[in-house]
């Protein structure tokens, strides 16, 4: 009886608040509005596992968009595929006072394919609705249900994943039959409520009154400051395949079972492999020759349907069409190596994603597949979708990651190579002949290694007109007359790019009377400065460690003498090291600059120190020398 009363009371209050506009913007606590462009008024994610192969999701959210910056949040899009169906789509638009303006139903939502870039075909689709309103703030409520008829993963919960989002209330309820086990990973300090309801176990996570965080540069993410939960199955059924992924070993076993029968090569392919390696003496040479064959004969074409998202196309098939996705090409390479008597393992990896969590096995921590050729001393890692990189170079996005080797004995965690600052180098020597008019003849020779090679390798394959346009745009030299330029990879076996440029600059020096001003660091200045942040919240890091060494040799014009040469600079901090000096001999100034940065993850409170360091580099890079006319 008591219970009924409470429910009745609740209903009454609900109704009456609704009439006044439950989503009236005036009801938002003032401190939530600070730095916010979007307020999540409420979010309710209700996921129920029925059995290993099916589940349902009920979702509802109410979002207030405060200003133009938050407009992206007003677009609703939900993905689905052959193994999921969306229904009960509904959206309501409210004005600032929380008064209903318009209602949208299933039919108002548009439907289109959601095939991602680089993929020629998969079955993912999207239902979407764009709600537009010219008066801020406004509020959108929307809800939908999804039935899953195939499971690979359970939904995660990231109530806020963007800058400028504040949350009034968000909740994730997860239900699973008591006969099934699962696992979850959550943010620190987040409470888990669990209880048993009939034959189901229910888990609940929630958060309230989370303030918005203003954008912070170089951030490695908001996960250390905001609540989140990741949930994953131990057993599942998907597209007629049963999987157990309780731990990484089992993930490996499942993936191995999907690929183990796909490595048979037809006789023609086997003969081809034998002929390619017939003169190779060492396994290393064989790997290189077969990898080169792979690069010059295949290309990336992504086709992923159902289990095809995990199961590679058979090697035989790849041999006949010479294309495939990352799994197909890695698997084909594995088959060729096998024919050459070399054992290799497929590798599940999150390219440009965090490392696999060693204690938490799930499929959605990876998005890519490469190949690992274990050797006693010198394990080789092969990125099989690139037609360009040298054998063994896997690129910045794959480096320094915990990954899963898919072996006949199940999954084995391993670590991909790390590139040090010295690996990711830029070495440059330039000569600059100045004349009295302020114009200059300049030659520049630069070598880029590893990650910096990767950043610039696009230049190797561009048409000269395009190369030229990009060069002129990227060089910070005014009034360029390009004479010649070339981009080469001197040694096909090494991830090193060589750039040679020769140009004339009609106005390099800035004039001020009979004095000429010359910015010594002509080519590699740190542009702009970042500003300090009080009370920063998130960790930060630069994209990758690197080391830049620049040497510029200036020949000063006849009739001028050096009036001022800046002093040497050495800057050192835990973030990196910077030196700059100018040495004068006869009519030559040799300017050398070194800059080494490490991409360690730094805690938020160190940011202002980083800013100070960065500012010093900025100022040091602006140093000018003054030339004066000899009287």
């Amino acid at each position, binding site marked *: 009886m008591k219970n009924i009363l409470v429910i009745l009371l609740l209903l009454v209050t609900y109704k009456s608040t609704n009439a006044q506009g439950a989503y009236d913007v005036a009801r938002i606590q003032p401190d939530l509005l600070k730095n916010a462009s979007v307020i999540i008024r409420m979010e309710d994610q209700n996921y129920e596992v029925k059995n290993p192969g099916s589940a349902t999701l009920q979702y509802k959210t109410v979002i207030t968009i405060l200003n133009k*910056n938050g407009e992206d949040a007003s677009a609703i899009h939900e993905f689905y595929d052959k193994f999921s169906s969306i229904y009960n789509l509904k959206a309501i638009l409210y004005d600032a006072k929380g008064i209903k303006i318009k209602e949208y139903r299933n039919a108002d939502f548009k439907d289109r*394919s959601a095939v991602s870039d680089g993929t020629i075909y998969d079955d993912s689709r999207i239902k979407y609705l764009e709600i537009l309103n010219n008066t801020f703030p406004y509020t959108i409520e929307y809800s939908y249900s999804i039935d899953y008829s195939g499971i690979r993963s359970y939904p995660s919960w990231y109530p806020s994943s963007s800058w400028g989002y504040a949350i009034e209330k968000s909740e994730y309820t997860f239900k699973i039959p008591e006969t099934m086990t699962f696992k979850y990973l959550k943010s620190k300090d987040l409470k888990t409520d669990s209880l048993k309801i009939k034959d189901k176990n229910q888990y609940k996570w929630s958060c309230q009154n989370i303030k918005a965080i203003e954008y912070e540069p170089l951030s490695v993410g908001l996960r250390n400051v905001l609540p989140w939960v990741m949930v994953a199955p131990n057993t599942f059924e998907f597209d007629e395949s049963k999987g157990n992924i309780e731990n990484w070993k089992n993930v490996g076993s499942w993936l191995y079972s999907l690929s183990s029968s796909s490595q048979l090569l037809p006789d023609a392919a086997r003969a081809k492999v034998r002929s390619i390696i017939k003169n190779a003496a060492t396994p290393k040479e064989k790997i290189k020759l077969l990898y080169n064959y792979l690069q010059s004969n295949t290309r990336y074409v992504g086709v992923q349907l159902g289990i095809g998202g995990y199961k590679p196309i058979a090697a035989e098939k790849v041999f006949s*069409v010479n294309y495939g996705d990352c799994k197909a090409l890695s698997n084909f390479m594995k088959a060729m190596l096998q024919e050459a008597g070399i054992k290799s393992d497929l590798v599940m990896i999150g390219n440009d994603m965090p490392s696999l969590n060693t204690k938490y096995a799930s499929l959605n921590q990876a998005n890519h597949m490469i190949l690992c050729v274990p050797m006693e001393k010198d394990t080789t890692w092969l990125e099989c979708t690139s037609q360009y990189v040298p054998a063994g170079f896997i690129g910045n996005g794959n480096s320094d990651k915990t990954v899963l080797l898919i072996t006949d004995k199940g999954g084995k965690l391993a670590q991909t190579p790390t590139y040090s600052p010295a690996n990711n180098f830029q070495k440059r020597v330039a000569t600059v002949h100045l004349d009295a008019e302020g114009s200059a003849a300049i030659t520049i020779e630069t070598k880029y290694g590893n990650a910096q090679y990767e950043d610039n390798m696009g230049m190797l394959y561009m048409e000269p007109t395009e190369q030229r346009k990009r060069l002129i745009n990227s060089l910070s030299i005014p*009034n360029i007359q390009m004479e010649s330029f070339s981009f080469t990879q001197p040694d096909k076996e090494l991830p090193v790019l060589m750039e040679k440029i020769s140009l004339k600059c009609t106005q390099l020096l800035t004039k*001020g009377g009979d004095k000429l001003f010359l910015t010594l660091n002509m080519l590699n200045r740190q542009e702009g400065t970042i*500003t300090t942040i009080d009370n920063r919240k998130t960790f930060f890091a630069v994209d990758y460690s690197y080391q830049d060494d620049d040497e510029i040799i200036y020949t000063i014009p006849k009739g001028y003498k050096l009036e001022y040469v800046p002093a040497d600079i050495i800057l050192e901090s835990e973030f990196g090291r910077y030196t700059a000096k100018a040495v004068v001999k006869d009519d030559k100034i040799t300017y050398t600059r070194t800059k080494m940065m490490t991409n360690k993850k730094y805690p938020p409170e160190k940011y202002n120190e980083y800013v100070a360091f960065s500012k010093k580099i900025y100022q040091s890079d602006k140093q000018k020398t003054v030339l004066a006319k000899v009287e």
Partner: protein
Amino acid sequence: MKITKFIAPLLLVFCAISVSAQDKQTLRKKFEKYGVVELSEFKTTVSGPDSAASAVVLFDTGVGYFEPNPSTESLNYIFERHIRYKIFSKAGYDYANLELRMLQYNGRKTELKIIDGATYNLDNGKIVISKLNKEAKFSEQEDKNYTLEKFALPNIKEGSIIEFKYKISSDFLFSIDPWYFQRKIPTLYSNFSIIIPSDYQYKEITGGYIELNRTEPNKNYLNTQGVQNNFPMHLEYVAKNVPALKSESYITTMEDHVSKVEYELSSYKIPGKMFYQVTSSWPLIAKELKDELRFGYFIRKTGNSKIVVKDLIKDEKNPDTVVKKILDHVKNNLMWNGNYNFFTSELSLKAVFDKKSGNSADVNLSLMILLKEAGIEVLPVLISTRSNGTHPGYPMLSKFNSLILQVKIGEKYVLLDATTKNSSPDIIAYEHLNHFGLKVNAEKEVGEWISLEPQNISKKTTSYVLSLGADHKLSGKLFITATNYHSLSTRNKYLSSNDENDFLKNYKSNKPGLQITNYKIENVNAPYQALNETMDVVIEDHMEEAGNVLYFNPLLFDKTEENPFKSEERNFPVDFAFPHEETYRISLDLPKEYEVEKMPKTEKFTLPEGAATFSFVAAQQDNKIAITSKITINRAVFTSEEYHYLKELFKSIVRKQAEQLIIKKI
């Protein structure tokens, strides 16, 4: 011989079909033999500027003709194509993936009838053929109206020759897709032929700067066959050695510069029924618009606009104020949804206001209804947006894609556009600034081209009044005044920021050392007036010390860093969209212990006919320095012949604005 009226049309139909069948054979002869590749084709190279192309089109042959469609009793347009490439490098592999987009709309459709493809590789001097197989054909339902047919060829290598052959049948006869003679890679040979039945009249539009050889091959043959106008029109175009098309900055769209031919239906006859004029003159287009549900009908369906307008303008008599009030009302209540169209998406003003958003026609024609209700003389102006390209000028409705309004206030004409929230009368959206528009009086069934060039130059003045402190800091005031498009850009930035701090943070982000206090902005919500900003500023880290001299760039943060015109030559005009002027002033007080060692010289640069000017004026009196830099671009468009002057002008701007000012401690 007497032929009854009933039989004659039938005969004509047969006649047309038989000619069509016969001509199809001649057309087909144009095709290179599919599947037959010569060894010599593998030796193809490209020289000159395109020598590093990733691939080359060896030939591209297309034919278009019409066939009766038994189920619709109308004709279908059939397009057949055979294209062959040689791939030079891995960057050219993408040409081995073909994607064709098929339209379905209102029960009508385009349909892919035949597709064939193959890869040819040289293996030890022998040609190895790999055919496009069934598993490499994919059909993706992109959305309600479009299906993507995708194909991936096998065994692609550097040096491969690939080809595709396909046939598409279309129920849509109104416009025929353009045939492009030019693309991002060079084309050695391109040939397009089309046979248009005598009952159909199409407007032919060609574009681009490549020389086309256009012929009418069967003219003589037709003349010997009796009554000429009963026979089809046969056109053929050939282009050889077409260079790759490369993009430039300050353009409308590359679509304006690519070589192509396309057609739009202007009239047709259905034998035995009647003659239909589709579009062939501006009056006819105006009439069509008048009778169109989503144009003429929309405008006439005034709904409750009388009450709305009465409520809005009350006793206001001044037409300027009336126009502004109504424009504001529409801008505040309707949001442009990002789509351009000259037909509304809704059927009435009420429906648009219910939805609170709409395409450019929804928004602007709603505005028109309200203005008319208020007694303002107003007409729609059809526009082809900058991205849609320049309208060819012929009476072709399909080449427009948007609309704005023109009102007459007293004796002056003013353009209105409600798609941009912070705009004002005569300030239309940037995309609409495509130089010409067609003013349509649907009721009177007339159309007239009008100029869309902004009447007033957009100005921005940045003035610093500063003094140099002992600590080498510059401090003082900054005043910024902006009009028209310059003020629109600041308004958009300000009003889309979270708050003023957020706006200032962005403003400061590329101005290292600048600190702002006491910021004030005036007229941010009054787009009809100049936008004024004032603030107190302190600038650190700007003065450089070298011995006993201090030097700095007086342009502070407003220096033109780079010449936007880098290419030596240019094939297209430079299109700035609107004329504009940027003035920069600085007045600086020096401390007593300093004197000026070197001032930059006063200089002035002017383009022929004063189309653009740059002046740099430096003056000094005692310890006061005043410098003014002014860039004036008086025209929106400069021809490719004038490009060189512009390039030189900007070169001078970059050089002059980089000059340092030197002061010396006494």
